[in-house]
């Protein structure tokens, strides 16, 4: 209990004392996570839309792959990406291993299936009559898509929130492909692991509070965006 309290006060101290390291780590965490969730959304939302709205042969099989991907353990993703990025690996010439883009790759890999899968089911849940009605009313393709997007908004934002949560929580892959290098690839989750192994529980606890505050704030805004005005 005492440790919790001192961890919390230490978190406040770290946040407001202008400790440069904590800012670097927090900023990098935000930058990496946002970039990853953007990339995943820009790729995942259209793909999810296509999978949810159209029917073609092989669609079911793709969905199975996506659903397996949702459970992809981050360390597995990390291991694969590490091997791709090794100096001796196929992408070794770009020296990307142990850089922030490598972490982003890993996070995209683990969050993309979630965003595709949940977007797909959000579109599938729409009443199939809507599309017919829209066509009957003479809506153009883009008009129809905008209206469907609006109808599926809650589900789509749920997909983004879930993907973002996965990204913020991720540690195994970030540790492996990032290397937890000070000032370079050290993000909140990996520094928590490191501080625990150093035995600095107070600092680890403080960092965990910072991480939770970030997650809370961002999820809070996304949830408000999702629910819109309380009209009911």
């Amino acid at each position, binding site marked *: 209990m005492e440790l919790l309290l001192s961890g919390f006060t230490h978190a406040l101290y770290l946040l407001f004392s202008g400790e440069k390291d904590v800012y670097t780590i927090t900023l990098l965490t935000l930058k990496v996570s946002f970039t990853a969730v953007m990339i995943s959304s820009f790729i995942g939302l259209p793909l999810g839309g296509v999978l949810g709205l159209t029917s073609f042969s092989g669609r079911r099989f793709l969905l199975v792959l996506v659903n397996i991907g949702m459970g992809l353990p981050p360390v597995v993703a990390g291991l694969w990406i590490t091997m791709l990025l090794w100096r*001796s690996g196929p992408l070794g010439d770009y020296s990307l291993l142990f850089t922030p883009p490598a972490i982003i790759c890993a996070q995209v890999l683990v969050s993309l299936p979630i965003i595709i899968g949940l977007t797909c089911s959000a579109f599938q849940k729409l009443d199939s009559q809507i599309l017919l009605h829209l066509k009957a009313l003479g809506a153009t393709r883009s008009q129809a898509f905008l209206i469907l997007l609006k109808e599926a908004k809650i589900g789509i934002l749920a997909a983004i929130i879930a993907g973002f949560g996965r990204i913020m929580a991720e540690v195994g892959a970030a540790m492996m492909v990032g290397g937890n290098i000070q000032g370079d690839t050290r993000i909140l989750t990996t520094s928590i692991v490191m501080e625990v192994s150093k035995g600095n529980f107070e600092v680890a606890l403080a960092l965990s509070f910072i991480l939770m505050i970030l997650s809370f704030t961002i999820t809070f805004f996304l949830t408000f965006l999702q629910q819109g005005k309380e009209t009911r």
Partner: protein
Amino acid sequence: METNLLQKILTFSCLLIVFLSTMIGCESNTSKKSNAKIEETKDLILATTTSTQDSGLLDVLIPMFEKEYSIHVKTIAVGSGQALEMGTKGEADVLLVHAPSSEEKLVRSGDVINRQRVMYNDFILVGPSDDPASLSGKTITESFYSLANGNGIFVSRGDDSGTHKKELTIWDSIGGHPASMESYIESGQGMGATLHIAAEKGGYVLTDRATFLAQQKNFPHLSIIIEGDKDLLNIYHVMQVNKEKHEKVYTFGAKAFVDFMVSDDTQKVISEFGKEEFGQSLFTSYTE
């Protein structure tokens, strides 16, 4: 109502785009910077053991090196086993490890060159302060023998690190690996986590002195049971990965790092490190 919603979606996407473009702006800025760096000097990848990071020694040495040579160092702190493996794969440029017999294999295979002795500290056996297996006063081999006979719990690193390799040589010297023993626990984790498990389970554990001293405040019930045994020396070597075998290795930086580690100034810093905080130095200067 509908326009309202659409507006919201539009503003949100605008915000997203603005945010993304600033992000990409930052991104390309930094990548430009690092590209420039690659032309002048590359990043130096140092693969080392957790003990040098967890004890805080690298936090002192790396900034010194970076200032002196203006080479950016990326430190990957892993077990000695993984660090050596990074050497054989050419994934690291320079290694700082403490597993002499495994290191010699890499020297023989030509994966590393310019191997230099840097420093030592020693391994100690720590255990519950009340010493339930009464090992205090025995030699390290006698104690391991006693533990093998079920007199107490032993917590092993089990992660192929330098410390784990040391445990194994001691077990080998008394003729066998007690993995089948019920009182033998393998943590498969770093030194700090393993000490924690030992503290919770009331077990004995072999640790390097630096990590134990640096973390002792977290383990009020663990004490040093055996120290100063001649079998317990923990020697660190620095070595550069051979460019002739791994073409992407950054030789200039690696050589600079080896020179830096054995230089008089660095050695002085190493032998002073920890004196203020722990009353004794954590590492002892030990060049060839």
